[in-house]
């Protein structure tokens, strides 16, 4: 999952870069839409992977482009705009490379977000030049700031190392209030950055207001200041310096309230907890899940230790967690319930036991099998790296050091040789395409050698034997090459659990996501294009489709909504279906909105349901009045149609008011490999997907009868079928026109059946589907073409094309 994320990100960033660089002198509307979409996706994916710094930066850029897209303001300084976007991109890139090398993405995006927000404010303010210089000086300032703090961090790290020797270095409890400049905005975020800044230099940080991510906190801080309490081994002066380096600081107050010994009294509510988490069987990548747990509690608790220690070591950690669960020892002033709630968040969590312990040492662990359930370790106690705060002066300093070690564990513990990308390499799909082409040539070349006319009539016993071996190897290679491109939908589908879950929490809805047919394999190219559409449709279903629990119970539905995500193969197509039992689409609302946007081309009453539903896929179309973090901006469904267009897929919406909606994405077999029956008609060859073929049979001209419209029909085994003569359908010449001379093939597409008349059957073989060149417009009845073993081209029949829509 992590490498998928990294790969996806790097691709998106590459795309983004192209658009931005091209847009230096002015962005086209398309480019703005595209950048907006990319940022939207980056925001979504990184939030899902809990890389919040990335997602907030992406969010601010998205906001900026949202404004550009909606308002299309004039006089925008595109050069600066591009600069800001590129800065944001570089930030994200840097974070991604940190993730890639197994480190924590800990960059601070705040200064950048501030710059972008200012820029946006400036745009909104009619491009008033006044704030510009201010905005421009900021990056420098921010740069200095980070350099400074980095410097400080080093210093303090050095101090921490020295500390054990200096017996006098003791931890002190400080209490203080800081005030920010009036009008600096987003006090909560600043306070958050401030707290982050102190991490590693101070411990046990508590503050009021508690939840800094809530925007209401900004107001509180503005009114009352930001109150905090912390313990630190740093001298008062140093701490003052660190605090005073905060951006936009107006005034500060810092008091030492007590020495190390009083610590226990100062924060009596700090307790030590032991938690054991186990994950569902088959949830895979337990180590990453554990990592996410660590990440989710970060900042709120002090992680004293965890087992397995090296959770990024895939093999060891996964086995360990599967066998023993993930053990976490932490200290926090949070209430038991609050902590429990946080810890039970992870997806696939099976069990969670959380208990309070007297001290970290109480958690006795045997190095190899910490048998948490009976709490009776067989082996002697392993000393825990962190000691309780009550310890005396002398041991307080080493404690500092130990803490630093623990807090950096996730990053440091990662063996540099074991980066998460180790087991996978990403290969450019064009290389796979090339490989596939060469494979085809190889097969042809093989036939040319082994069936060479010069060999005819010769007794070649060993040659034939070797040739057979060669043939076998070539077949194996062919299978491998083809399988390389096929990827099950599993990973894509399972990503959706998380999305549904997060949305449910935020929207206070209850939704069950049911996944069916996740082992359906799809060409790699296609998977890349459909994962976003699936995500957006699911979001749409949860956000718009499923109603609030109380509303549901009023209408007699179960409180828990249900979204079914299903994949299946039909007739050579892959169908991906998202079905919800929500309220269904509101046709009137969609029509009204379409009318307001001037999208209607005929009288509203003339629109069919299908046409109405298609409106929701237009860019910028949303019936949600309010922009939420999930939807309302009208990007999502736009992504669905654009992405599907790329792979030549379609999306179909069905909806019953009050009962729910069904989104069916039909992905054509482009680039997929199909089992095909090659037939001859006229001078050309055609390939019919075997999966739609029911049977072939001979018939006579006299078996045919016609209805008044001239439609031909045939009776076969007591049932009547329509007959399509392929040469007539395509309007090409063929020598064989009489039914007796050719052959009938019965084809099936879903519920419908038709009999196709062709000249003759040639044979069955696996073919690689290639799209028709773009230059040739869509031909009804043909879905693509393929190159046969002898180098000839065969056109692939689209069975659906024979039926009326």
């Amino acid at each position: 999952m992590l490498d998928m994320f990294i790969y996806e990100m790097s691709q998106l960033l590459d795309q983004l870069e192209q658009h931005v660089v091209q847009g230096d002198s002015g962005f086209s509307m398309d480019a703005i839409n595209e950048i907006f979409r990319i940022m939207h996706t980056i925001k979504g994916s990184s939030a899902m992977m809990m890389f919040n710094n990335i997602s907030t930066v992406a969010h601010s850029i998205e906001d900026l482009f949202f404004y550009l897209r909606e308002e299309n303001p004039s006089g925008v300084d595109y050069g600066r705009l591009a600069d800001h976007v590129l800065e944001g991109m570089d930030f994200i890139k840097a974070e991604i490379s940190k993730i890639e090398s197994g480190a924590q993405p800990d960059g601070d995006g705040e200064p950048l977000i501030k710059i972008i927000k200012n820029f946006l404010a400036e745009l909104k303010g009619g491009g008033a030049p006044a704030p510009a210089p201010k905005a421009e000086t900021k990056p420098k300032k921010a740069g200095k700031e980070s350099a400074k703090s980095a410097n400080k961090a080093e210093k303090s790290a050095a101090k921490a190392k020295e500390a054990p020797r200096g017996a006098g270095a003791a931890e002190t409890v400080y209490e203080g209030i800081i005030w920010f400049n009036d009008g600096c905005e987003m006090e909560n975020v600043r306070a958050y950055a401030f707290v982050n800044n102190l991490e590693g230099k101070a411990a046990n940080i508590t503050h009021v207001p508690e939840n800094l991510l809530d925007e209401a906190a900004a107001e509180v801080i503005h009114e009352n200041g930001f109150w905090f309490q912390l313990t630190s081994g740093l001298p008062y002066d140093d701490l003052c310096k660190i605090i005073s380096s905060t951006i936009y600081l107006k005034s500060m107050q810092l008091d030492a309230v007590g020495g190390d010994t009083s610590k226990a009294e100062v924060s009596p509510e700090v307790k030590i907890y032991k938690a054991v988490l186990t994950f569902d069987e088959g949830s895979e990548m337990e180590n990453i899940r554990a990592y996410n747990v660590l990440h989710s509690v970060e900042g709120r608790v002090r992680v004293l230790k965890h087992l397995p220690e090296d959770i990024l070591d895939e093999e060891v950690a996964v086995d360990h967690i599967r066998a023993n669960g993930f053990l976490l020892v932490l200290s926090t002033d949070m209430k038991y319930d609050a902590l429990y709630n946080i810890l039970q968040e992870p997806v696939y969590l099976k069990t969670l036991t959380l208990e309070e312990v007297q001290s970290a040492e109480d958690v006795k662990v045997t190095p190899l099998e910490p048998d948490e359930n009976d709490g009776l370790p067989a082996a002697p106690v392993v000393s825990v790296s962190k000691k309780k705060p009550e310890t005396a002066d002398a041991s307080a300093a080493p404690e500092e050091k130990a803490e630093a070690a623990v807090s950096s564990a996730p990053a440091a513990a990662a063996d540099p040789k074991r980066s998460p990308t180790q087991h996978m390499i990403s290969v450019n799909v064009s290389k796979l395409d090339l490989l596939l082409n060469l494979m085809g040539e190889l097969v042809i070349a093989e036939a040319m050698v082994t069936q060479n006319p010069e060999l005819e009539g010769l007794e070649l016993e060993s040659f034939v034997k070797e040739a057979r071996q060669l043939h076998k190897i070539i077949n194996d290679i062919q299978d491998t090459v083809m399988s390389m491109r096929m990827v099950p939908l599993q990973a894509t589908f399972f990503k959706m659990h998380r999305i549904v879950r997060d949305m449910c929490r935020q929207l206070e809805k209850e939704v069950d996501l049911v996944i069916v047919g996740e082992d359906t394999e799809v060409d790699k190219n296609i998977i890349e294009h459909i994962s976003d559409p699936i995500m957006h449709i699911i979001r749409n279903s949860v956000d718009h489709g499923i109603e609030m629990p109380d509303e549901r119970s009023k209408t007699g539905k179960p409180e828990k909504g249900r979204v079914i995500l299903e994949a299946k193969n039909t007739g050579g197509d892959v169908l991906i279906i998202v079905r919800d039992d929500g309220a269904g689409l509101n046709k009137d609302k969609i029509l009204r909105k379409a009318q307001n946007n001037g999208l209607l081309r005929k009288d509203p009453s003339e629109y069919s349901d299908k046409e109405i539903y298609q409106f929701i896929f237009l860019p910028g179309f949303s019936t949600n009045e309010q922009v939420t973090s999930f939807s309302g901006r009208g990007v999502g469904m736009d992504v669905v149609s654009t992405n599907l267009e790329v792979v030549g897929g379609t999306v179909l919406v069905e909806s019953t008011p009050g009962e729910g909606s069904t989104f069916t994405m039909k992905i054509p077999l482009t680039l997929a490999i199909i089992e095909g029956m090659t037939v001859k008609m006229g001078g050309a060859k055609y390939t019919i997907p075997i999966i739609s073929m029911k049977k072939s049979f001979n018939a006579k001209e006299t078996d045919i009868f016609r209805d008044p419209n001239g439609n031909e029909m045939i009776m076969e085994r007591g049932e009547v079928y329509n007959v399509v003569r392929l040469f007539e359908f395509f309007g090409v010449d063929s020598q064989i026109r009489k039914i007796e001379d050719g052959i009938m093939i019965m084809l099936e597409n879903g519920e419908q059946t038709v009999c196709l008349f062709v000249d003759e059957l040639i044979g069955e073989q696996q073919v690689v589907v290639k799209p028709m060149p773009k230059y040739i417009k869509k031909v009804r009845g043909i879905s693509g073409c393929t190159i046969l073993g002898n180098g000839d081209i065969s056109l692939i029949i689209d069975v659906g094309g024979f039926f009326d829509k």
Partner: protein
Amino acid sequence: MAADTDHLTQANQSIEEITKDQYLTFFIEDEEYAIGIAYIKEIVNNLTITQVPQTLSYVAGIVSLRGDIIPVINVRCRFMKADKEFDEQTCIVVVEYQEYQLGLIVDKVKEVMFIEEGNIFPPPNAKLSHVNQFIKNIGKIGDSVKLLLDLDRFLLQD
């Protein structure tokens, strides 16, 4: 990175310089036409053309060129001239124009020649026939004239 780009632009420039003023000429009936050599990818013959039903009349079909599927245009049809049996001089000129790769069936390929800018003249301004709307300019070499194709109209307009 910057150095790379420079290098690339330089390479592009030199390609442009080399191909500038150079044209590939070919025959349709008795007329000699020319296409800027920068658009020409290769010239092939003896490829089996697979017909595609229900396409524009001048689309002869598709061919497989080392695994790539390329549509082929029958230039005679495009010019509304009578079709002609393939002979040993008939070739397919593969051109790359915008995002398309296309084959052009021509009667005979003649040569690659220089036509200097000074010898290129605009076509007559009266649009009399269907064909001359595809002619961008007239190139003059000695006594003979070549018709320079307007690829945009020729390939992309219905």
